[in-house]
């Protein structure tokens, strides 16, 4: 893209006299005549001038604008639905749960939120829960975990790292899984019902596997003592975190999704970058090519409200989204590409004018010296 000029120099041509008389005065200190030592290596000497960057600008413009348009269109085709179920509003069905939360209550508080989808969701639908104002990226929080503990190391299981403090021991019994992240695991459960026009409800099957990174599930997280059946025994001598209601080996009935390799747990353990974040909760798989995964109509979201966000003014959301090759809905990327492409194109035009006006002057050879 740049003006180039190869000035490969013969290695010997530039040392007048050296080759002739050099032999006579052969001396230990006589420097070698390599092109490198004489700083005369052949080199490409590009110079950024208006003329040379012009094509680059036009090229960027011409490439970026179509990409941007493509991205924008793709993003617009993605369907996304979001519902806030925090219950801050008095009219919200979850208001009482929001208000009357207590750590000690044994009875789960349930609430159900009706909503409707205007358009059908055609392909696989991904169900996320979203939290706001939750600082998963706080330093104290981020480091409050023990990766070798989570990797099934038996010693670490009973001797959690001090990074986990103050969530490492409960009444002098080691906590498994230890640390603030594990302790604060999101434990609302959500169920989705389709409300048929005849008011009957049918539960939509939610897939709970495939929501965590494959490598996390299969390599990074391991249950202690291998993934044997007897998890209860494996976790002997530990207790569950203070904010949990049940031990880690009771997270799921499926042994492939229990203990440390429970995918909900793994998803939660990947700390989010920003205080407003979403995490994958369930996948709604497309069953047949004929019917949409989620047809338009009325739905009900049944929430078991366990997770308190009132104290730190948090928000909880449930998101349904389809996914394209470029991920979820993200108009920013498309817009950015279009903008940058246009700017480049515009700059190309400006530079062309400048080049036309000044180029001859600034690069004519007779100005030299």
């Amino acid at each position, binding site marked *: *893209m740049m003006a180039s000029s190869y000035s490969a120099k013969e290695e010997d041509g530039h040392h007048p006299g050296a080759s002739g008389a050099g032999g006579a005065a052969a001396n230990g200190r006589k420097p070698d005549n390599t092109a490198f030592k004489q700083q005369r290596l052949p080199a490409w000497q590009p110079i950024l001038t208006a003329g040379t960057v012009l094509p680059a600008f036009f090229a960027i413009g011409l490439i970026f604008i179509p990409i941007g348009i493509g991205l924008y269109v793709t993003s617009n085709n993605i369907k996304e639905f979001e519902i806030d179920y925090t219950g801050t509003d008095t009219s919200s069905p979850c208001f009482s749960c929001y208000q009357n939360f207590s750590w000690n209550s044994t009875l789960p508080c349930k609430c159900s939120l009706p909503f409707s989808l205007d358009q059908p969701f055609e392909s696989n639908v991904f169900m996320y829960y979203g939290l706001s104002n939750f600082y998963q990226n706080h330093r104290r929080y981020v480091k409050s975990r023990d990766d070798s503990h989570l990797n099934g190391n038996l010693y670490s299981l009973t001797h959690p790292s001090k990074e986990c403090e103050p969530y490492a021991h409960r009444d002098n019994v080691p906590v498994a899984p230890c640390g603030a992240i594990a302790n604060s695991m999101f434990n609302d459960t959500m169920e989705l019902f389709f409300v048929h026009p005849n008011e009957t409800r049918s539960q939509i099957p939610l897939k709970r596997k495939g929501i965590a990174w494959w490598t996390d599930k299969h390599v990074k997280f391991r249950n202690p003592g291998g993934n044997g059946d007897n998890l209860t025994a494996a976790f002997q001598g530990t207790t569950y975190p203070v904010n949990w209601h049940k031990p880690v080996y009771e997270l799921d009935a499926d042994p492939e999704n229990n203990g440390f390799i429970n995918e909900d747990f793994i998803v939660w353990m990947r700390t989010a970058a920003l205080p407003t974040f979403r995490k994958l909760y369930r996948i709604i798989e497309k069953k047949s090519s004929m019917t949409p995964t989620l047809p338009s109509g009325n739905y009900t979201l049944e929430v078991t409200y366990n997770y308190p966000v009132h104290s730190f003014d948090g928000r909880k959301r449930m998101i349904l989204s389809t996914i394209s090759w470029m991920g979820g809905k993200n108009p920013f990327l498309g817009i950015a590409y279009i903008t940058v492409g246009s700017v480049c194109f515009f700059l190309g035009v400006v530079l062309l004018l400048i080049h036309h006006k000044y180029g001859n002057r600034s690069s004519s050879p007779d100005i030299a010296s």
Partner: protein
Amino acid sequence: MDFSALRNLISRYCAGEENWVDSRTVYIGHKEPPPGAEAYIPQRFPDNRIVSSKYTFWNFVPKNLFEQFRRIANFYFLIIFLVQLIIDTPTSPITSGLPLFFVITVTAIKQGYEDWLRHKADNSINQCPVHIIQHGKVVRKQSRKLRVGDVVRVKEDETFPCDLILLSSSRDDGTCFVTTASLDGESSHKTYYAVQDTKAFNTEEEVDTLHATIECEQPQPDLYKFVGRINIYLDRDEPIARPLGSENLLLRGATLKNTECIYAVAIYTGMETKMALNYQSKSQKRSAVEKSMNAYLIVYLCILISKALINTVLKYVWQADPNRDEPWYNEKTETERQRHILIRAFTDFLAFMVLFNYIIPVSMYVTVEMQKFLGSYFITWDDEMFDEELGEGALVNTSDLNEELGQVEYVFTDKTGTLTENNMEFIECCVDGHVYVPHAICNGQIMPGAASMDMIDSSPGPGGREHEELFFRALCLCHTVQVKEEETVDGIKRGIHQGKATSVYISSSPDEVALVEGMKRLGFTYLRLKDSHMEIQNRDDEIERFELLEVLNFDSVRRRMSVIVKSSTGEYYLFCKGADSAVFPRVISGKVEQVRARVEHNAVEGLRTLCVAYKKLSPAEYEEVCHQLSSAKLALQDREKKLAEAYDSIERDFILLGATAVEDRLQDKAADTIESLHKAGMKVWVLTGDKMETAAATCYASKLFRRNTQILELTTKRTEEQNLHDVLFDLSRTVLRQHGSMTRETLSGLSNEYHDYGLIIDGATLSAVLKPSQEGSGGNYKEIFLEICRNCSAVLCCRMAPLQKAQIVKLIKASKEHPITLAIGDGANDVSMILEAHVGIGIMGKEGRQAARNSDYAIPKFKHLKKMLLVHGHYYYIRISELVQYFFYKNVCFIFPQFLYQFFCGFSQQPLYDTAYLTLYNISFTSLPILLYSLMEQHINMDILKRDPSLYRDIAKNSLLRWPIFIYWTFLGVFDAVVFFFGAFFLFDNTTFTSNGQMFGNWTFGTLVFTVLVFTVTLKLALDTHYWTWINHFVIWGSLLFYIIFSLLWGGIIWPFLNYQRMYYVFMQMLSSGPAWLSIILLVVVSLLPDVVKKVLCRALWPTTTERIQDSDNLYQSHLSEFTSLSTLHAPHRQQKRPDRQNPAPRRTNWCCICANLLLRNTP
């Protein structure tokens, strides 16, 4: 006698300390004086060891560490490291400890090595053998074991090991000849005198019987001043006291010449010798770039502290709500809770400091050190600075100053041996207007007037032949040359017949030698002075004898010398030779006009001219002259004045014979070099110990002064006539008036006559100017003097003592513009100025290696200075300034996103990047490209730099490290950082990046930012690189590749022994996502865009000289490669790609063509 001894004693004990300080008593041969004569009080003197090294084996570690941590940057990193060790910080102490340890070690090794070299050099001096007389025998000792009071024997051509008082010499008259070339640059032989009463002691045994003490002043640096007294005890008599002066004192560093051997006693040794006192302590020199670097460092330190402060304050504001400070999901430990709020705040502040500390890059110092160290090899390797004769190339003693070579504004050069070869050559003479040129390849044959060119008047007058011979005789007689016979008389004769000099002429003035040798080639050979008869062999091989009656010695006021001789026929002649201005007014007849024309012609050529005149004296006149001279010589008062008067009355009414021209051969290409330096905007000053006339002639020859240069003189001669004050004001008025009229002329467009000024000042006047006067007007003088100097394009300082040279340099250094100075010299007399100047360059001359050893750089010849400054200096400056700016830039890019991230993570000091990235960013991901750039970059071809010295002005005054440019780079860094962070932020915000719906965490976010960062920063450097060798390609693309491979590896496995696995598969997951790729490309483009646009616009609209030349050179080269077959010679490997292009479109018709053209050319 007893009385005097008593008085001595009393005065010594009563006066106490002061006397001790003022004088010292030296016991010759360590023998006690006879009892009762004087109390024997042994004094302690240092031994004769010269120490130029800084460390010893024992104190190296503590002293070096102390010196290193005195550097503000190192101290800062040490503090950061300690903070990390003590408190809980976001990053591990290794991240800053490792680089710091590396820096300290590398620097210590480098300094240790340099000091080891100095030790070696010292040892070789300190261990060289000296011969000492002990108990009547000669004992060989190492030089360092020499003690005050030892009697030393020195043989011919040996160098004096310390300051000595000459006791006796092998010459009968008790004199010896010495050359002080390596001390003050005068290569002429000087005569020193032995003490009258000891000159008879000619053997070891005799010397050993000497019983004497010397009382003398404590050492002081003035080379020409010495006051002392020797007390000689003979047979228990009252001691004979004789005064000692500088004519008895042989200085360390001087060399014995033309004398077989001498005996002398050591009085000042080791670091107390006058030579050592003239040294200055070798202080660490700092380059201007380093100063800017430190200034930038302070700015960044302020930025750092303010960032940390802002974040700490905001943290506590934000945390005021306890649910934010300690939400239920993220509680503190009990110990954290109990800590006092102030301690917590302070710890937080420190933690923020640690988090952001990378903004001050420790690796910059390593890279700068490495760049300087490795870069200096290119100077050593340079073939063009290799001297075949010496068999040596340039030497780098201090690599700290490479870039300073590109910033020089004042060049102070020594004359003798630096500008000139110190090798006079007789060029021509002119008798009555006829010019005689001795043929260079004369082979002993006489080249008479007929065969030589005759420029002015071809008709020889009637007395022409007679005058001609008289002229030659005059030159053969009127001198103070001594003949050193190397062989027998026989040999001399044979030698002369063969036309080869087997006898050597020695004189205090090299001109005289050249003249006498020139005469020899013209047929008149001066043989010797025997029994006060001078013998001349004339053209017919006859020996003529003249009786030498009187010598009226040369002095710089009269500027002429005369001899009175009596020929064998009994006629008295007075021959005089001298400067034209000193001779012409005293001439009454002769062809003055023709000679004057020739003299002026020669002077313009830069030759040293002398006029020769004579007069015949009658015996009566001679008697009169004799009487005048002897009465003047015997006068006790105002002897000098009376002598001058006598000379004045004798030297008049001359008949002009002719003139001579002698060339002080300039060093090869000296004039060209000086011209280039002038063109490059440097002011060249010549500082010499030599006399004014000689120096001025050299300045003309070397084009320092041009024909139209108006010379301003500020010399003793002038200040004697007028007082200094008036002279100074006169000169400044002249200069300023000229300056004023100049501007007016340029305004009116009539400035075709350009005057420039040259100033000549001598040592005495200089010290008067610099002397702080009691009235407080001394500072004033200094200012005026500086003002004059500023307006002179060239300055010549003559009659300088070594320390005065340093003073001048210091004066200019301290003037208000603080210009960068460079001193270049070859002798020990230049050492002080070499040490004082910002850059000191030594020439590996004939006068020993003192200068080369104490310099920062040593080159074989003066001409090499051109390449040193214009090419190497320029390159190093360009390279290092980019290095410095780039380093700050890339660390702003690196750290500013972390700062922004704090706003989104509750000011919790959460690092954005993984520890490995934090540590390796500066060490490996981005370090090599800039290092290689700073070693290889050539923005313009070497040959163009040499051809066009004015390019040097483009980088003058530290122009690439000025504040605006620094601020531009910083803002560019901040802009890029904002693009990285908010780009990633908006792309990442609340959305899914993958096609399987899974989410990324904070480490992916950081890795995305970091990837964009590494690519942007590396590509930014790629855009700045003008010289892409395969090494640059390898390193730039290689380090990007390394980053990717490292990240894959780092995230690829579960690392045992690491207590966190947060990066596991993060990088791969990111690469598997399409939007991540797209955002990386987008963000890199956006970050690079403004800089490219700025560069292109500036180049198109406001091009600098450099850029214009780049463009035209580029155009020229591309023309070459497009239209001529020359390109096939230049780039054979490109040739194969070209045949598919039959009709190259003409350039710059429209952009499509350019586009097509470029694409064609660049497609592989």
